[in-house]
């Protein structure tokens, strides 16, 4: 029987749809023309200029700094909340808790941005890095909690009980059994939190204070007055970084799986 070619064609179309814009962006970042309409020769001038723009690098540093702290804070808070949600899933309090965790996912960003800003102003907190971090944690926690909760749903808690039977304290069991078993879920949740934090524009715009401009805000305002090819060059660098990171993490997980398989065989 001949295989249908439909899935093959469909995959191709979807890939083109997803990756063509990115490809255009990468190609354009090497275009010496400032206005992407016509190709005016290969050039690295936008990359050269990018390295002479301290404002962009400062925003990049702010963004990474915020994302790291946000990832850490929301991993801790999100995981604990997922554990509580899972363990006491039938109590009314936890069902209410679940609604609370779920809400930030469906509340429109602009509403969240404005209301957070008003809350910060009402509390007299000075706008700056701290307010961005707090705002990002409020929505990242939900994503982390739901991702970890998904992991917990098919988690075999008998292992933890076995550890307790064998004399481990509850802290020891959590640290040595539960956390390592959850590690892939935590890594996934952490990556989501990191990405969301690096990406966010709307909420960040409202809660950012003076001196705390992040990369998305900088890029967005550059579209109006700045040079778009600079943004293309910056995006290409970020893409290259992301791809390398994905490749490395794949390598690591592959070699890890290989090692554990050989360990089982011996």
């Amino acid at each position, binding site marked *: 029987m001949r295989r249908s070619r439909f899935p093959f064609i469909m995959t191709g179309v979807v890939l083109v749809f997803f990756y063509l814009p990115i490809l255009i962006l990468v190609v354009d970042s090497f275009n010496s023309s400032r206005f992407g*309409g016509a190709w005016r020769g290969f050039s690295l001038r936008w990359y050269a200029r990018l390295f002479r723009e301290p404002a962009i690098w400062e925003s990049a540093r702010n963004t990474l700094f915020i994302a790291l702290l946000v990832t850490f804070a929301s991993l801790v808070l999100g995981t604990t909340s997922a554990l509580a949600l899972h363990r006491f899933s039938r109590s009314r309090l936890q069902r209410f808790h679940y609604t609370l965790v779920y809400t930030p996912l469906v509340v429109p960003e602009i509403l969240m941005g404005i209301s957070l800003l008003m809350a910060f102003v009402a509390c007299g907190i000075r706008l700056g890095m701290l307010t961005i971090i707090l705002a990002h944690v409020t929505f990242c926690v939900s994503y982390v909690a739901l991702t970890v909760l998904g992991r917990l749903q098919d988690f075999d808690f008998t292992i933890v009980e076995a550890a307790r039977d064998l004399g481990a304290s509850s802290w020891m069991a959590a640290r040595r059994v539960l956390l*390592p078993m959850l590690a892939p879920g935590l890594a996934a949740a952490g990556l989501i939190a990191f990405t969301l934090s690096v990406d966010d524009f709307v909420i960040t715009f*409202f809660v950012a204070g003076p001196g705390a401009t992040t990369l998305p805000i*900088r890029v967005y305002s550059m579209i109006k007055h*700045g040079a778009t090819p600079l943004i293309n060059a910056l995006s290409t660098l970020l893409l290259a970084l992301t791809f390398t990171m994905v490749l490395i993490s794949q390598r690591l997980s592959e070699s890890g799986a290989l090692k554990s398989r050989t360990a089982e065989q011996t």
Partner: protein
Amino acid sequence: MKIHAVPRFLLAAAVVAAGLLAGQCGGRKKERPVLHLYTWSDYIKPELVSRFETENACRVVIDTFDSNEAMYAKLKAGATGYDVITPTSYMVSLMRSQGMLRTLDHGLLPNLSHVDPEYLGIAIDRAMAYSVPYMLTNTGIAYLKSKVGNFEPTWGMFGRSDLKGRMVMLNDMRETIGAALKFLGYSLNSTDPAELARAKDVVLGWKANLAKFENEQYKNGIASGEFLLVHGYSGDILQVQAENQDIAFAMPREGGVISCDDLVIARSAREVRLAHAFINFLHDPAVAAENTEFIQFLCPNKDSYGMLDPSIRENPGIFLAPEIRAKCEVLADLGEKNTLFVEVWDEIKSGM
């Protein structure tokens, strides 16, 4: 040992983050005052900022916004910490009416004597009580010299059916309806329903010849020759001209929009003296000339004009002929009457 991998990673992340935080606090020199500027991106020459920092022993922190409305929403909700802001004139009057701006102390601003009185004649805040004009841009017509025959500097060009499908107008109700109002000889800020109705018919006539209403891509479109004639901002067009010599910019003889971004000091500003010093610095004629050449918008500082490069000094798109300039206007905040424009614009967009 793999057991500890996750907590260790988290610990490491925390340590790195704490280090970064400490580094940032340590890097901040407490004794130097900090001026916070909230502006459009790339809207001041970086070397000038460094010069101001050295001269005044301070630090300037620049944050950027991308639209007047977003900036207004943020400040209105209570965001503080910004000293000098550069909104467009119509937004300045709105912010003024909301009590968000400080009255300027002219004793600290001796350089205001250099501000072009000709521009002030059409400005909204003529006395510079709470705003000082920073950068001007004109909205006019850009076209490809080799492709558009018998060009005439008039808004009526958009009615030429031989250019059908190769022309673009701005997707901005005040600019585009304003062009039609000017074409008919009315004021840009007209709120007379009969005049607006006539303007609507004019724009609908033009719309039949347009490829689209659009604000950003028209620059790429004219640079690559996809569009032959576009309605656009002189600042943008100058940047495109640097790449494609075939592009010319003209201000229609009926007059058009001059937009101005103003320097204002926020009510909540902490460094009020420094903010005045900064505004004064930007209107030093030599500084203004350098800034104009870098941004390619025009700083309305009459004593800086002589120092400008001839290519800018003699560009009729930047320095308008006096008789055309006299017909140009600044977009005013229409308040409640704005809905009249919204209605007309909706009807234009839906093609009625």
